[in-house]
């Protein structure tokens, strides 16, 4: 099995020494201690493990780390810049779009992939774009609202229209 010795994560070069076939999720969590990315199912069906690889939405639990080598990996830990939360992070707080929050990292990463392709998605476009991410607390309505807030740049406005 070929090995992977370096990864670009959140703009930094990280040294590792792992089999190329093991999951990106496992390397992020166990080797690099980036535990914001979660294990939810191991079958790419819940989205808790969502990260971006070269800006593309990626289910890290079913992605061999070899496929991410040499590419830019972004995890939830890399979203805030200079201590300032990303607009999606602000919006999730504002819309109270979390209960147990175990899905939150994956939701925010999937939403950022969605918004990078479609800056102003409609409600239906949010639903179809996010439909592979599960929130077991089932507060999808609030997550939709959070994405709408972030997409319209109103995270800091007081009143939010649905």
């Amino acid at each position, binding site marked *: 099995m070929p090995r992977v010795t370096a990864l670009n994560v959140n703009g930094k070069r990280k040294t590792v020494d792992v089999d190329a076939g093991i999951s990106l999720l496992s390397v992020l969590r166990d080797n690099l201690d980036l535990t914001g990315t979660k294990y939810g199912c191991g079958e790419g069906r819940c989205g808790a493990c969502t990260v971006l690889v070269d800006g593309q939405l990626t289910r890290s639990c079913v992605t061999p780390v070899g496929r991410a080598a040499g590419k830019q990996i972004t995890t939830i830990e890399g979203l805030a810049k200079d201590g300032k939360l990303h607009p999606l992070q602000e919006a999730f707080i504002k819309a109270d779009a979390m209960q147990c929050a175990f899905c939150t990292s994956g939701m925010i990463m999937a939403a950022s992939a969605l918004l990078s392709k479609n800056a102003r998605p409609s409600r239906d476009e949010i639903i179809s774009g996010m439909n592979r991410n*599960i929130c077991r607390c089932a*507060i999808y309505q609030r997550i939709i609202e959070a994405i709408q807030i972030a997409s319209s740049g109103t995270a800091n406005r007081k009143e939010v229209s649905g």
Partner: protein
Amino acid sequence: MIDDREATDFIEAERYELFVAPGYNFHFDRREFIKTFGVGILFVVPLTRAFSQQQDESGRGGFNSTLPSDIGAWIHIDEKGVVTAFTGKVEFGQNIRTSLTQAVAEELHVPVGSVRVVMGDTELVPFDMGTFGSRTTPTMAPQLRKAAAAAREMLIVMAAEELKLQPGELRIVDAVFVNHDKSKTLTLAEVARGRKLVKVIPENIAVTKAVDWTIAGKSLTKVDAGDFVTGRHRYTSDIKREGMLYGKILRPTTLNATLRSANTKAAETIRGVKVVVDGNFIGVAAPDQQTATRAASLIAVDWQSTAQPSNAELFDLLRKPAPAPERRRGGGEGRGRASGPQGSITDGLAMADKKLAQTYTVEYIAHAPLEPRAAVAEWNGDKLTVWTGTQRPFGVRGELAEAFHISEDKVRVIVVDTGSGYGGKHTGECAVEAARLAHAAGKPVKLVWTREEEFTWAYFRPAGVINIKSGVKSDGTITAWEFHNYNSGSSGIQIKYDIPNHDIRFHQSNSPLRQGSYRGLAATANHFARESHLDELADAVKLDPLEFRLKNIKDERMRDVLQAAAKAFGWGKLKPVNGRGFGLACGFEKGGYIATCAEITIEKVPRDKNKARVRIVRVVEAFECGAVVNPLHLQNQIEGAIVQAVGGALFEAIRFANGKILNARFADYRLPRFSDTPLIEVVLVDRKDLPSAGAGETPIVGLAPAVANAIFNATGIRLRSLPLAPKGISLVSA
């Protein structure tokens, strides 16, 4: 409170068997406290008789004598003025960390930001039965409120002494003690500085009335939301310890199988791998997860399986009552009919113009918490520390003590805020497994169950069969109500309808699958059956479902929510259109009143004219649970409960055969997703004149019957089994 007690008393027999009463009483020792908490002032709430009764209500009547007799809660104030409240409750997404923070800040008159809540660490917090039954708001919040209110009064006396004033001249505003003209001030931090005090607070202390709340009663987002949106929060599965190994358990090929033999030689040759075979337990620990998985795959195990039932036989099996020894000890088979039968069913049926008898069923469903069971276990000599996500930290401490034949004071269980449970994480099997591996390896071990393990080796919401016999007069008066629930439970079984002749019973059965608590317990099943049947009765006498219900309900709180939901929904004003239906349901459980209206559409499936898809397009739910503590989080809970309920209502069901769970993956077990979310309108009925009840559970119970009634409204087809439409509905019988 009989209804409440009934509701929470039933956690299901197996949970009782797993329940281990605490063998360790925390004795109140001031020196110990000071050692633990350091400089500052500690306010201790003695466990009063009143509190014991509240604990009793929270569901475990018979165990009262084993509760620690000393302390109910404590609040610490450190030299920086940071207020820390300690509670045995745990945060699983109900957002009680936020609501308890609000309660303490309110009574102490300090900003929300200066209050911390330490939860679920058995070494730091007072004993607690567990976080279930929607009891945090009605029992723990008042405890902490009292502690904070008493602390405030005692702190005012201490501040007054320092400022050489009379206590009556001081008040506390935003953590600062001030006199009337603000000429003299002292901060909370200044009062606590250099002190090493333990103050026992008096029992009779007044708390702020809901109408006067300034912090509670207001919307507040999750207090530590920033930790979650950044991925900073460490769930159990994120914890790392020095030298930690990763565990992997070898699971039997079928449920209830026993280990005949195992060949572990190949696995044991791998460097750093520890293999443990102990009775039916077989697992490995290794320096990383991949090695653990590889080592496990090299072990050849021979399991002895037995023939077991499948879905096809389920409801016949459940209708057979359990033999006596299987019934719950020390609580009784009678707890499903606390109010006892009233009147005579025979007489009630005799005076009826129409009689109905129907059977309703519900399948097993899975909690499927997004964070599967996880534990990190670490031994230090004979002392064991386990981080794990459980709703019963003290119960799991007992399980660990029993498993390793050590006393409970050698075991510390720490529950960090967990990735949900919905009643599915009462037990400590993952904690015991991790601890067993760690014991053998002599190093800390982390064990995270796979999704498949979580689906297969946890436990399910009970399946059930409900038989109802009823009679109604032509004018819509219900005259008889006979209700038998087999296996699913007695929560929400009591009625708010005024029926002179009723007999309501719960019967335990031998469940073929391991079953236990679930959000709302059996209230979903009982409301589904009752509210579906109510619609059938309304149809029998040609009355509008809303009018029919109101005719049979005197309870004002029930009428209020029913009318509030109907009004917001536009009930009676909506014209039926082809392929569209409207349904409603109402109920009462755990101190909360709920009414749900649903609008559904029926869409023909292309290429199959006999099949149709059901889509829930709009839901209005009115909820009243006394004084609202945090409107934002209450609304959030209700919205989540409605959409979570969509799964159990339409498509969730565990498929099993001969000791195997057949759909133990998200690919095979469908959960509600974004595309299943209807438009939701929540109507909060805020009763500041009534004590706050919990709200995590009851909002889930109204959806399934409202949807079943809407399907009938749209199609004339009456569906009496949950899930209603796992693969759409058949139009053939229409």
